[in-house]
């Protein structure tokens, strides 16, 4: 592993999670190339298969960005996402991977600037964890 290595991160983002328009624009247009933003209507839209796809594609970490519990635009989508994806995290341990490769960032309306801190913190964590090679496949999964 060299210093030049940067972890690849996929961010699944609820389209309502960032209330600040400036921040959303930064996410939309100015993310560094090693971070991929995928917007979904609600964090509840994120299927565990999406995460599996990402990990098998060689992505080093997945950040789930949703709204804080109780403030979901679709009533309880973020709770459903949390139930479902937390289960998937535990499955990662079973598969011999680190749970920390999947991280949640439940962001409230007032928490401006938090998404950048989350991304920076996550990147640091992933640098410690190193490359994620265990489940890498070259063929896109069927969804």
């Amino acid at each position, binding site marked *: 592993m060299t210093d030049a290595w940067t972890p690849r991160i996929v961010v699944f983002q609820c389209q309502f999670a960032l209330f600040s328009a400036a921040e959303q624009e930064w996410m939309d247009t100015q993310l560094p190339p090693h971070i991929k933003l995928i917007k979904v*209507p609600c964090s509840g839209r994120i299927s565990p298969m999406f995460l599996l796809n990402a990990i098998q594609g*060689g992505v080093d970490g997945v950040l789930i960005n949703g709204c804080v519990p109780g403030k979901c635009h679709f009533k309880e989508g973020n709770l459903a996402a949390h139930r479902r994806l937390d289960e998937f995290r535990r499955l990662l341990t079973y598969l011999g991977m680190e749970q920390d490769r999947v991280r949640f960032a439940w962001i409230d309306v007032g928490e401006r600037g938090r998404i950048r801190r989350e991304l920076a913190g996550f990147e640091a964590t992933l640098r410690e964890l190193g490359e994620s090679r265990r489940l890498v496949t070259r063929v896109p999964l069927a969804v």
Partner: protein
Amino acid sequence: METRKVGAIVKGRPVYVVQKGDSVLDAARYMTEYGVEAVPVLDDGRLVGMFAGRDLMARVVALGLDPATTQLGQVMTSKVAVVDAESDCQDAAALMDRLQVQHLPVLTGRRLVGCVSLRDLQEVEAEGARVEARFVEETDTTMKRKKMGETREALVDRLRAIPGGEHAYMCYSCGTCVGSCMMQKVEPSYNARRLIQKAVRGMAEEAFKDRTTWLCSACDLCYPACPQQIHISDVLNAVRELAVEAGYHTVLETAQVDQSTCVACGLCVAICPYEAIELQEVRIMGRARTVAHVDANHCMACGLCAASCRSSSIELADSFSNEALMADLWQWVGETQAVPAIEVEVAVPAHAAQSAPVEARE
């Protein structure tokens, strides 16, 4: 329409007359001075004829008579039709039409009170038509207003009859709900305050067409903010129900079920926050099967069902479908592949071992 009397037209007008013994020249000057085209001719106070521009032309000028010496009695039209002041204008016009004249002396009893022309009668008729048109227009507007009032009453009553819709009237349009709504982020035209006012004012069509009607996802962030404690999502939901009743459809791209792969496990039914999915028995290829069915007018296209489905049988349309999201992901994965791909051993079947080498699937 009320018919007007001939007497009403001539009333108040000066009566222009000439005497039988006057010269044609005097009469012509008199008529020119007062701007009349025809005058009754009197003889000793009695009506004896009419003298019109037509008479001047045909019986004086055309025959080469000297206007200064010719007396009116020689050239006037002595066979004169008269009309009573109490006659209707329509009757007078019919008479003119029959006799091919354009002026009629008007009498009250035996007294001459004026002279009515065809133009007078035409003006009366035009005025009547205008009055009639205005009347029709006013009646029409009144009817429209009445109808609008009815729509308004009906819409508000129906809105209040639906549980949750009864609070619509309490809204005083402060707009706090709009300020706290997340929908503004993706749909700037979204405005719950405006929609409630449309509904309260009976603007049924405008309310039903408004995207706001269909986009409220009942997250209820506005509910604690509302100073009137209106449960706004309930009001909006009531409007939506009325819209569905009126035959309007959702503007969202809602979830679609692939009936051929759905196994009716019910996971989507359990997870849908809007209870928009139910299991239904349908006939597919002649066989009865139970599959999930999405009520499009209650689906908010959040995608919880799509994420929970084990067989990808329920999907959001286009940009948020599994395929689209994962294609996006894999394209990025391919572009940023920094590490060399690992070797994948492909088991080659014995019968294919001699043929062409197996190409890597990429």
